[in-house]
């Protein structure tokens, strides 16, 4: 039923992962990382781990996203890397 959805999610996962590591704006990288985590949460749900998916969405995407933004504003936004 949902292997197609999973495939899309996997591709999204890999894209956001590469994106998060390669963009030079750290805030964009943080956004990509959050997107990655959220995609991961969706994937968990699709694999039947509903509880894990919800936790990941709230804790992984939510809190870590907030952390990220807080950290970027506390430090610098640009990177050469």
């Amino acid at each position, binding site marked *: 039923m949902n292997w197609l959805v999973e495939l899309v999610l*996997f591709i999204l996962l890999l894209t956001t992962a590469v994106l998060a590591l390669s963009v030079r704006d750290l805030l964009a990288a943080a956004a990509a990382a959050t997107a990655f985590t959220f995609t991961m949460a969706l994937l968990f749900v699709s694999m*039947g781990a509903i*509880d894990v998916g919800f936790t990941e969405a709230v804790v992984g995407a939510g809190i870590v996203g907030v952390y990220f933004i807080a950290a970027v504003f506390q430090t610098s936004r640009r990177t*050469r890397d």
Partner: protein
Amino acid sequence: MIEFLHSYYAYWAIILLLVIGLYGMLVKTNLMKKVIGMIIFQNAIILLFVAAAFKWDATVPVLDPAYPSEDPVNYLNPLPHTLMLTAIVVGVAIVGVAFALLIAIYRNYGTLEEPVLMERMRSE
């Protein structure tokens, strides 16, 4: 091992993610990027657990009259799931500490770029 990987393509994606994460942690010079790599790496492992517990034609581990409950084949194994809840929380705690350290480093040296940081540390 080979047929194990062959049987489910998710494992290939997981391996790719692990490599990407490791690359981010070890090769990237910006410390924030290292943390992102760490997140990717940890999540890939969690995905591995979840994927390992996944079975086609089985349902979530909640009792359902439509599936015969006496046959465990019909349900996913809930144990890895519950464990992964813990793993996620642990991972977030580590990321939190990492950010705290990043802010401390930035206050002390005004940069998050590893080469610059090394330079400034050596010169003091």
